[in-house]
């Protein structure tokens, strides 16, 4: 998202990676790793088998 502030001018430029980028990078890496682990554990799917207790309602949960 962009506003009227220019990308150039006095905002930049810092040399080296800012600390917030490192923190965000570590968090992003952990989130992606968690996602991959969940995907692998779910047989490559992020579907109902992962999220639902009873993937087959014909076998359980009926009155």
């Amino acid at each position: 998202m962009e506003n009227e502030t220019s990308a150039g001018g006095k905002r930049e430029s810092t040399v080296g990676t800012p600390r917030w980028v490192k923190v965000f990078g570590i968090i992003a890496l952990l989130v992606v790793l968690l996602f991959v682990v969940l995907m692998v554990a779910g047989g490559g799917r992020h579907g109902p088998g992962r999220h639902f207790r009873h993937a087959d309602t014909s076998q359980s949960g009926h009155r």
Partner: protein
Amino acid sequence: MIMPPRLRKFVLTAHVTASVGWVGAATVFLALAVVGLTSDDTGTVRGAYLVMEPAARLALLPLAIASLLSGLIQSLGSTWGLFRHYWVVFKLLINVFATLVLVMYMETFRFLASVAADTNADLATVRSSSPLLHAALALVLLLVATILAIYKPRGMTPYGLRKQRESRPSMP
């Protein structure tokens, strides 16, 4: 290619509208998920899970895709670029990740709706905590993206720094 100011404003308006709409839609899904988990009324619980799939297909997913596309056009058509500033890169990653998970989650919405439509399935089977978890995580991600867009924290990528050096006139 840098867009002319009027076009840039138009794309920015589209991007803000789609992004804010996405946050609103995710909030509605959080509310639906809470209703599905807490309501004692059978019709209300089943209705909550039944409405999630079409609402996601007709509102959530289009808003996510519109936010992603308008964000891509906006960044590529302005001096910010797509890979020049870390905050833009992180926003892109958040947007792509959230949209990807949402696309994959559509299968779960369909499944939850099919279970809710099954009159033989009891309420305990119909209820699922998964939409609550996903809506909450989506809101966290979208909130972070919004904060990045507003505060625009400093930091240029090595690519951005190189481009900045190239664009400066060489000193005599």
